[in-house]
Structure formats: C-alpha cells, structure tokens
C-alpha cells in the first residue's frame, strides 16, 4: 500500500548550481551555519548579524540575482527544537525566514537566521528591498522580533494596545485581551 511514497532519489545532486554558487560566495565569511536542499528547496542558515551582507550578496551577485523578496516570516520552535539540530547548539528558539526569488534566473532560495528569546533583534532589510517593510512589521506584530533600522516598526494586523505576540507558541490560543475602548 505504500507504493506512492517516494523516497529521495540518491542519484540527485546534493544541491543545485545556485546553491553551489552561494556556498562559494559565503565560504570563509563565517556567516553560514547550515545548509540543506530538502524537497528541492535550497536553504541556507546564517548568523543573524550577517543578514545584511548576505542579502546584498544574494541580490547583487550577477550569477544569483535574487531581485524579489517574496516572503518574510518567523517560526517559533518552542518545544520542537529537535526539528533542526543546529537550533539546540545555538540555544535558539526563533528563526526569521526569508524567501527570495530571481525573475531572470528563475530560481529560489530560503534564508534562515536563528534568534534567541533574549536577543530577538535582527537588522531590517528594508534598505535592500523596500517591499520588506510590511512583512517586517507583521513579523514584529505577531512574534515580537525587533528589526533594527526599520523606519516605522509598529503593529500592523493587530491594534496598538494588544498585549503579547500571538503567534508565539507560549501564547494560549484562547487568551483574552483587555478592552481598550475608543480613543478619540
């Protein structure tokens, strides 16, 4: 009955050409923590301090040319750190996740930067892609990650006066919020 389950073909290369180029560019910088190409999605995990350098490299390198910042989000691995072995070593609980795409070269990359609860800061990439503005505000709103250098970091989906960051795993689903009343 399990004939539909396809195992990863062992003959496939460990990573794509793009990934090779990225690893070549990042070699020696100390930025890279981990990389994988699970399910064909090329992924690099980098030190959060190096996010701006790495993003500029990815955008400006003529062979990479990632011109669109497709998505920016955060994941909270509280209680599930075992999913990624490197998280335990860094004592990290959060990951900021960027998905980039290159229109011209038609390839994608996922960039992840692990963060700890105590140091939930990362540089804003609004200077690299202006379109990251609202995505970073949303990540701040729902997870409480502070993007340093963001021009207007305030809540976006929720209202001013909301307490806590609801997508954190320790935020109870049914938690009540105080009434804020009209502000005129």
């Amino acid at each position, binding site marked *: 009955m399990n004939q539909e389950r396809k195992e990863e073909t062992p003959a496939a290369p460990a990573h794509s050409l793009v990934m090779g180029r990225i690893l070549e560019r990042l070699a020696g910088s100390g930025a890279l923590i981990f990389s994988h190409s*699970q399910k064909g999605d090329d992924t690099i995990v980098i030190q959060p301090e190096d996010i701006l350098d790495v993003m500029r490299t990815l955008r400006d390198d003529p062979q990479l040319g990632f011109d669109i910042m497709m998505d920016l989000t955060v994941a909270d691995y509280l209680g599930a750190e075992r999913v990624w072995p490197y998280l335990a070593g860094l004592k990290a609980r959060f990951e900021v996740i960027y998905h980039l795409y290159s229109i011209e070269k038609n390839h994608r990359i996922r960039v992840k930067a692990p963060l700890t609860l105590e140091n939930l800061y990362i540089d804003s990439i609004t200077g690299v892609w202006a379109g990251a503005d609202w995505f970073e505000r949303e990540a701040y709103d729902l997870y409480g990650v502070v993007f340093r250098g963001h021009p207007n970091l305030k809540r976006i*989906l929720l209202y001013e006066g909301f307490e806590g960051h609801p997508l954190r795993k320790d935020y109870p689903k049914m938690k009540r919020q105080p009434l804020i009343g009209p502000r005129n």
Partner: protein
Amino acid sequence: MSELIRPGYDFHKETHTEPMVINMGPSHPATHGTVRFFLTLDGEIIEQIEVEIGYLHRAFEKECENQFWNGVFPYTDRLDYTAAALNNVGYALAAEKLIGITVPERCQYLRVIAGELARLSGHYTNLGAAALELGALTAFIYFVEARELVWDLIESLCGARLTHNYVRIGGVTADLPEGFAEHAREVFRRNRELWDDFAKLLLKNRIFLDRMRATGGISRQDAIEWGFTGPCLRACGVPYDVRRAQPYLVYGQLDFDIPVGETGDNLDRFLVRLEEINQSIRILEQCLERIPPGPINVDNPEWRQPSKDDIHRDMESMIFHFKNTFEGQKIPAGEVYQAIEGANGELGFYLVSSGAGKPLKCRVRPPCFALTSAMPLMVKGAFLADLIPTFDMINLIGGECDR
C-alpha cells in the same frame, strides 16, 4: 480684486491653504475588504497616505497550528474568498511536497479545472467591482451573471459556491459530475458573449478610460523591489507567471498565453486581467478535452482518507482512518515552500512539520499584502479620485491580506 490680477501674481503660491487630513474607511463603499486610509490632502492632491489593514485578521496561522493537516482546508478557503479553490490547491500541493507524494493525473486535471474556475470567479469579481466603483453599474451586472454561471459549475463540482473546500491532501473530494463538460461549454459560450459586452461597454468609454489610464502607475524596478507578482507585475511588462516559470500540476502540458502590459498603470492591469479570463477559459477547455480516466486520489490510506468501502474491507484503511481522524496525519518533519499562481499573484505556502499531526507553522504568502504595501508609492501626488481605481486594481482581498 485689483491685486489679484497684478502681473506676476501666482495663485498657488500666494493663496494661503493648509493640508487637510481625512479618514477614509474602514467602512467606506470603495474600501471593500475593510481597510482604512489616513489621507493628507492638498486640495484634491494626495500628499501623504497611510494604509491601515488588519480589520479582517482572523488568526489564520494560529488556527492552522491547532488543526490537523486536513483541517486547514476550510481556513484556506477564506483567504482569497473570491478564488477559494486556488488556495486549496496551493496548500494541498505544499503538503504533498512535504510528504513526497504525487497525485494521479486525473486529480491534477481536476485541480487545474477547480483552480481556473476559481480564478475566473476572482477576475470577474475584481473587474466587475472596479467598473462599478467607477460608475459603470451595467458592466458590473454583466460580470455578476458570468460569475454566477461559473459558480453554478463549481457548485455542481463540489456542492459549494463560495468556499469550495474541494481539495484534500492526496486528492480531491469529488469527481466531475455527469454532463459537466457540456454544462461547462454552455457556460463558456455565454461567458464569452458577456465578456464581449463588458469589453465593449468599457473600453470605448471615455470616462472609464480617463480614470484608468496613467493612474496608479508603477515602474518595473519599483514593482520588483516591492515584491509585486501576478497581474500587477505583468502589467509592468514582466512576464512572470508561476504556471509558466515553475510549472506545477499539468500546466506544463497546457497551451496558454501570458498577457503582459507596457506601462504598469491601472488600465494595463485591467486589460491583463481581462485577457487572463480568456486564457483561463482556454485552459479549462483543454482540460475538459484531455482529462484522462483514472483514480482521483492517491492509493494510500495514510495520506488520503480511505473510502467507506475500503474501511470495511481493508485492515490498513481502517487503522489509518481511525488514526488520521483522531491524531492527524503524521507528516515527516521538515519545511517546504510551494508557490502557485493565485488570482492576485504568487500565492506561497510555507509549511513546517515537526512530525506531529498538526502543522508547526502554516504560513501563507499573500500576494495582495505586498501590493497594498506599495499603495503610497502609487497614489502620492495623484488625485483623490485616482485612489479608487488604483485600489480596485490592487485587488485587496481582506481575507487574504489580513488572514
């Protein structure tokens, strides 16, 4: 009065005016989907605009994290509710990529059919509403009829008109009903007539053209920088369509064109969407012709809820039926990003599994979120009246933008 006509008098410079701050929305007739604009106006010119979204936030991600993998589908329906089946397809493809299964060919065709019908419904709604808000009520009624006919088709396919909930991980809920192809051909014939009437009503209408042309424009570089995808990016002349760039399902075997614009203004966005309606019908006609017979679900009870017959006959089906209902499907730990071409642009699902029955994270990349964030860029310095067509062509869907 005499000093007013003295030589060198500059009316705009010397007349004392102050900018006016007005609040538009969240329940303004033109801000469908509840969104609020804080506008600073100099006369009729928009000096500053701040867009406030979030009025339709329903904690999509938090709810999904508390659902079994298959329980997420009804929530995805309510993202872009004008094109619900597309969201179903996107989520199912992402989950299947994470599991590592491929659905049978007939199922892939069925998903393309459901998705393209949903895209038709989304485009009819968008274009009709845009015409309505510029005063063309008649044109709106034509596309409402076209949308009703498409909804009839969808209803015969899955029983629901608006929130389809049609797709499941590893398959779809139902096969084509009898006589679907003939019904569909009849609908497409009528919809082509309605399309012709709609286009004739608007594309020679001076008022409509003046309000659409050269308003809300954005340059190609800015559009890319701000993460534009879908019809709004194609209107700038970038032929990026996920169906063509990174084909999924059977789009690689289908013959369709990708309309692109030149200037990136509202009229181009309108025309791109108008042509995409024709292309969607082309895709649907090819699908109905080519759809092969065969199963519509993967033959694996672990990933696709087994039928009642199988549960009574087959031990493994019975076990997985019980386990999937009470514990959820145990999708292997990992992460995956799957993009599809939604009605508004690239609809991406980023799923993380920890190996439990529920998603650790279920993120959706909403295309109109990125589009709306660039609103200030598009309307600053324009007339207040230009805000309406620009906002229409951005096609903010509250359910998708606010989640």
